[in-house]
């Protein structure tokens, strides 16, 4: 989508100046996915394809409910199914709607080298602006949730936009609108937290001691949150990271290395210049030529004396 809200950025990839963000009177939004209410019908997955005009390639059936088997450039949200046997021996079917978490501190944006290819709006949504994307795949390395996918057709990176185009004109995301059980809610982040609190209390009453909200503080919180029955073990839900954080390697690469490298290069260039004006050029003199000529003649004389 076009960047409808370009005066509204609070973060912009590969940009040293923080955007002025002149229209920042917006509420922070959030999508709340109540895993305990999801029936795995994939209506949200279809709605996403429909609204965003995505038709991912048909894949082989590989014996699991996941279809396709992973996120891809044309599948921005994917229902993941995990079978879990709890301590009492009950089988639980943990179904999670996977997709971009819209991190408050987005690793993808931190890693991206192309100015304005990834932006974050004042409402918290993290959006990929395709026309600026160069297809390097750095966002893939930056993301703690393994979300962005690079298209083999146009070499641009794709992921869930949180329907920024719909939200920008006051609509809820397509998945939220479609969900038949009300498992996906959308609103201000505060409201969503309140709502999650009520749901979690209910779940605890029903015996899920560890029910809780997934809003990981390591990435500053997320604008897509989950209500989990087992919030103590997020990884049960098809590998949802227990403690998602931007890799320290990415931190070093995009942090200390950049200024250090610039300083090093500038120092080398300036040193060379200073040396050149202090010491002057290193020129071969007529005396050098004379010495060389003398040695060559001496060698020739010796040579002819031998033969």
């Amino acid at each position, binding site marked *: 989508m076009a960047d409808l809200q370009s005066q509204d950025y609070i973060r912009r990839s*590969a*940009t*040293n100046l923080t955007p002025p963000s002149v229209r920042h009177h917006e509420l922070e939004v959030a999508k709340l996915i109540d895993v305990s209410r999801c029936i795995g019908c994939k209506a949200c997955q279809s709605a996403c394809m429909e609204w965003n005009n995505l038709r991912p390639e048909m894949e082989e059936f590989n014996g699991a409910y996941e279809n396709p088997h992973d996120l891809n450039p044309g599948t921005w949200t994917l229902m993941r199914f995990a079978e879990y046997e709890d301590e009492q021996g009950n089988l639980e079917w943990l179904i999670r709607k996977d997709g971009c978490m819209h991190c408050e501190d987005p690793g993808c944006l931190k890693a991206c*080298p*192309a*100015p304005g290819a990834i932006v974050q709006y004042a409402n918290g949504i993290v959006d990929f602006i395709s026309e*600026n994307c*160069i*297809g*390097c*795949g*750095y966002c*893939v*390395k930056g993301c703690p949730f*393994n979300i962005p996918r*690079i298209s*083999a057709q146009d*070499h641009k990176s794709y992921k869930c936009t949180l329907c920024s185009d719909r939200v920008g004109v006051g609509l809820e995301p397509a998945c939220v609108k479609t969900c038949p059980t009300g498992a996906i809610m959308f609103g201000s982040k505060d409201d969503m937290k309140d709502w999650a609190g009520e749901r979690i209390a209910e779940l605890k009453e029903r015996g899920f001691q560890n029910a809780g909200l997934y809003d990981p503080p390591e990435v500053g919180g997320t604008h897509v949150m989950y209500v989990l029955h087992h919030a103590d073990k997020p990884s049960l839900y098809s590998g949802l990271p227990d403690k998602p954080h931007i*890799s320290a*390697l*990415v931190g*070093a*690469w995009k942090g200390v*290395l*950049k200024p250090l*490298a*610039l300083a*090093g*290069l500038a120092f*080398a*260039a300036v040193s*060379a210049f200073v*040396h*050149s004006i202090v*010491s*002057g*050029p*290193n*020129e*071969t*003199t*007529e005396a*050098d*030529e*004379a*010495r*060389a*000529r003398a*040695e*060559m003649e001496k*060698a020739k004389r010796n*040579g002819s004396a031998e033969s």
Partner: protein
Amino acid sequence: MSYPKGTIVRNSTLTRVNHWITGLCFVLLTLSGLAMFHPVFFWLSNLFGSGQWMRALHPWLGVTLIVSFLGLFIQFWRDNLWNRDDVEWAKSLDKVLDNREEEVPPVGRFNAGQKVVFWGMALILPVLFVTGILIWEVYFGGATSIETQRVAVLIHSLGAIGAILIWITHVYAAIWVKGSMRAMLHGWVTPGWAHRHHRKWFQRLVATGSPGPTPDSTAKFREH
């Protein structure tokens, strides 16, 4: 190719063509790499048409560079082996930098500084090649884990900065020591140049009656 009378061949035509292919690739790699490394350089992507073009070209330039550098390596490694003269030369580095080369112990075809440039590149470029392949999204994006690619991209940028630092030294030395550019552009140096900067190389050529660049390569690369 013919050289002016009374001069010494420093670099054969093959070496020179090989060197400038390598140099062109390196410069383009540096420009495109820096554009992706730091936002202050991103405007350099315009030199390549667009960011997408730059991203696509960079690894191919890298592949060309590594093949081309292999050619230089084969031609130069023997004359870059470290020996006792290099230790003596390195000890007089202050005099070298102070432009008092007359007082510096004589060396062969390459001095210790040039050898450090050579072996530095010979070490870093293969590292850049391997890590570059690992982060080549189009072909190898799915070949390794994301964690591996994080390590690779960090090493690639570190290595690139190291290589560029070496390259700055290399280019500055070539500008500073007058006659070096001509040696790589047109292939020849004056006897005085050879005597001043690489006396043992000069003396070996004189003793064997070789026109250069090396006594043993005379037959192979004989050009005048």
